């Protein structure tokens, strides 16, 4: 060691001596070489970007040259969605569509509360007291005593700690999801989930994992995958929130989610469940509390329930309910809650009265169920059309048994069935979707909506008429 050190020192001394003895031109040459190396080291050997030093004139030319696409592409004049049905008068049990009087099998007025005199009277009283609009968001003098009352009533009805109101049904779940699930979080969602859920997920910018519709094995597979992923990176896993988002009664398929299995998976994999109950609220369960009551599940096992008040309650708006720990967060973080004007008081009053009616007449749900089952049975065995959905679902789908090749033609065919029924006094509609926007586009279908106002004769008439229409159009 010591010898080596000595040796090195000696070399250094020799070098210095050599330096003194070297001729000047040599030193100069070496100096230049060293400078050259330094320059090479510090100068960029390649250009990161082709520099486009355009002259102002060239820029002007580019701007002159650029031709944008038109703001919107032209819509073909015969586009099926361009000309809406025009409903003159109230959209109640008997509805006038395009000038023709029909029995309504299209509006989600399951409990017939749209035309209810008590509801109207309550709304009138509210209108007399508060006027129409609220002129402000909840934070800024847009909180009315009716809103507080409705929130309390909804919470009590659903037997949860707290409920929060939104002024638009669509915005409810679409705002609730991004209030909790953020970038980097993981959401497991049923592929049949409705559009509002899809938009909420998109706004959350979370990691989205679709599982096959109602396929618990597929969901568990994804959860397991995630578990192994988590074991690889436990630090990240500790801060990654996970959610399962499902619907109680699926808008797009008419069937219900297997909630008991979902709850098992929830505790097994420690995932929170958000439940969209827009169709099942006020429909399923002995008292209309929805899918949790239907399965007899403790509502506290569901982290968040969201529903709109635009179907059973026949008002406008939506609500979320659950434990205060969860719901309260939306009062500052739910975008549709904070930044939107609150629900017009008359609509809140209508919803309160509708809740009263639901509480006073719990057999209404049994009646609805019987009617659903009746038409469900009557619609079986139509050649060319298959019934999709649970027998107790008040919104069921009729799909073509065999597609005739293209979606466009299927839609046209179904439209002829709808028109046939409409001409004979039964108002039906196809389920409308934005074909390019849907994650998993459901096949085209006619949606049949059952309400308690429809009599047994009307139900039978509708079923036989649909059969007749299918026969004449499809065969």
């Amino acid at each position, binding site marked *: 060691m010591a010898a080596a050190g000595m040796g090195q020192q000696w070399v250094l001394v020799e070098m210095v001596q050599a330096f003194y003895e070297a001729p000047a031109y040599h030193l100069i040459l070496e100096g230049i070489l060293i400078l050259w190396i330094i320059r090479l080291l510090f100068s960029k050997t390649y250009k990161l970007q082709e520099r486009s030093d355009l002259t102002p004139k060239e820029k002007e030319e580019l701007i002159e040259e650029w031709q944008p696409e038109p703001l919107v592409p032209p819509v073909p004049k015969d586009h099926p969605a361009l000309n*809406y049905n*025009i409903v003159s008068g109230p959209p109640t049990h008997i509805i006038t569509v395009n000038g023709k009087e029909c029995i309504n099998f299209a509006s989600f*007025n399951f409990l017939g509360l749209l035309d209810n005199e008590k509801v109207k009277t309550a*709304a009138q009283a509210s*209108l007399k007291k508060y006027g129409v609009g609220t002129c*402000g968001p909840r934070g800024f003098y847009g909180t009315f005593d009716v809103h507080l009352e409705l929130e309390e009533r909804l919470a009590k009805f659903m037997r949860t700690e707290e409920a929060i109101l939104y002024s638009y049904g*669509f*915005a409810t779940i679409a705002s609730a999801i991004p209030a909790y699930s953020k970038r980097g979080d993981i959401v497991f969602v049923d592929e049949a989930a409705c559009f509002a859920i899809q938009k909420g997920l998109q706004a959350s910018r979370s990691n989205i994992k679709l599982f096959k519709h109602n396929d618990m094995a597929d969901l568990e597979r994804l959860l397991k995958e995630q578990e192994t992923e988590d074991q690889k990176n436990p630090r990240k896993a500790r801060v990654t929130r996970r959610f399962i988002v499902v619907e109680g009664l699926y808008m797009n398929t008419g069937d219900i989610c297997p909630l008991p299995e979902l709850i098992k998976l929830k505790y097994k994999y420690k995932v929170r469940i958000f439940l969209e109950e827009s169709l099942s609220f006020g429909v399923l369960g002995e008292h209309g509390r929805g899918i949790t009551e239907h399965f007899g599940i403790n509502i506290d096992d569901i982290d968040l329930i969201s529903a709109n008040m635009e179907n059973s309650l026949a*008002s406008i708006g939506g609500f979320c309910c659950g434990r205060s720990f969860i719901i309260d967060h939306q009062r500052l973080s739910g975008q549709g809650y904070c930044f939107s004007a609150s629900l017009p008081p008359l609509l809140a009053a209508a919803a309160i009265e509708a809740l009263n009616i639901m509480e006073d007449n719990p057999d209404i749900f049994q009646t609805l169920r019987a009617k659903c089952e009746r038409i469900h049975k009557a619609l079986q065995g139509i050649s060319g059309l298959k019934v999709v959905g649970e027998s107790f679902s008040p919104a069921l789908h009729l799909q073509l048994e065999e597609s005739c090749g293209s979606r466009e033609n299927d839609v046209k065919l179904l439209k002829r069935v709808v028109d046939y029924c409409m001409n004979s006094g039964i108002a039906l509609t*196809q389920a409308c979707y934005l074909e390019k926007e849907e994650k998993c586009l459901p096949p085209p279908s006619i949606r049949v909506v059952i309400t308690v106002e429809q009599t047994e004769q009307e139900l039978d008439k509708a079923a036989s008429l649909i059969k007749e229409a299918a026969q004449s159009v499809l065969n």
Partner: protein
Amino acid sequence: MERPGRAAAAAGAQPRANGCSGAAHGALRNGYVRGLPAHDTQVNHIVHNGGLYKRPFNEAFEETPMLVAVLTYVGYGVLTLFGYLRDFMRQWKIEKCQNATEREEQKDFVPLYQDFENFYTRNLYMRIRDSWNRPICSVPGAKVDMMERVSHDYNWTFTYTGRVIKDIINMGSYNYLGFAQNAGTCQEAAAKVLSQYGAGVCSTRQEMGNLDKHEELEKLVARFLGVESAMAYGMGFATNSMNIPALVGKGCLILSDELNHASLVLGARLSGATIRIFKHNNMQSLEKLLKDAIVHGQPRTRRPWKKILILVEGIYSMEGSIVRLPEVIALKKKYKSYLYLDEAHSIGALGPSGRGVVDYFGLNPEDVDIMMGTFTKSFGAAGGYIGGKKELIDYLRTYSHSAVYATSMSPPVVEQIITSVKCIMGEDGTTVARVQQLAENTRYFRRRLKEMGFIIYGNEDSPVVPLMLYMPAKIGAFGREMLKRNIGVVVVGFPATPIIESRARFCLSAAHTKEMLDRALKEIDEVGDLLQLKYSRHRLVPILDRPFDETTYEETED
């Protein structure tokens, strides 16, 4: 054509935050002229924009005084320190924790909230929570009744005493034209429709929810706006968030004002288009972005943009500023982009005939590609609309998310809009008195506040009047002191505003009488002295052409 924004350069000053010269006063950001004779920024502006503006455009954002800014930061510092202290005490169970907690069964789940997320809510917002969500129990007109509530646990919970505080002067609701009424033609018409149609609709526009009333409303709105066609939606927020994605998508560019409302931001985000932000109402910033975008095309792929959409609002609800629409339109034309104008606060509230910011500047509505607005504010109803060319509306009728998936508007709400729009248009026999009254109230109220020495933001014609409070403690104090004096005001702080620019906001209404405004002004003056809010360093020279009589004016001038 003279390029907009040249004014600043010509005036020999640095371009300032608002695309206008600050030559006259270092402290003025927006070429605002306050009756001081010598300063000609305004004149410059008109000249250098090739006469784009037909009327004076006076907008002020007085700079925050240095001392106030420092004190504000100190205030937040103290609050944060105490927040940590109390969190520490809560952790060691010295102080009772009032937070709602996770279920026992789910304690081992990944926490739903990160702790620091709630630090602000728990330690700052909670202290002054009583200034928001105050429940009212009457029509939100010029005067409201409020439910009295008290908190025995420092705002963690409220209990209602059952008493009602009557006749609070309402300076908070967006009731610009005073259509929040529970009597009169609008209410009667709405009541009639309610008893005929019921409250809800239970279907979407494309399915079975397209009522004759909706069609009537849309035709009327199109006529009111002076556009070919219009479509109405059930919620103002959703009008933005659900329609912007139908208009632009991948490969498109959105240029958005930095202070745009959350709904525009959400809509832009959902669309999948690239979003770039320009400085608030700053035309140089916008032009630079436009030019760069066209010259450079899309990042990485270098393809030209499919289309460029500019998103602006008519009146910015937190700043009280009015969009520089003539310049925006000039830029939009020059750079072949499309303009989306959100008139949530300006429709009804601006312009000689109440037709919004386009009317205010005397422009052609056809120059705005997408005219969006809400019915919540000036019309005292709910919902939103989009107006424009027939092709645009046809497209939206087919592809708008709202039309396909959301329940259509409630018929009585629709009727309220129909009658109030007809009233503004003077078709029900009344005149445009409401619009004029609002304009007068606005000018009077703003002028008086400035004379008192408050820092007031925004345009002199904007009925949204922000009064700067700055310090966090003053947010709560101002809200409470005003309520004590029976005046309901809105106070806002972070995150709705920049952290040091907390403010109170008044929204004027045509329903405010002079007596109400004077009382409100007197109380604001008093509270202003009490809380030392008169920060303005510019003394206002009284202007003689006041809309109201001299006597009241001199009373308070002391």
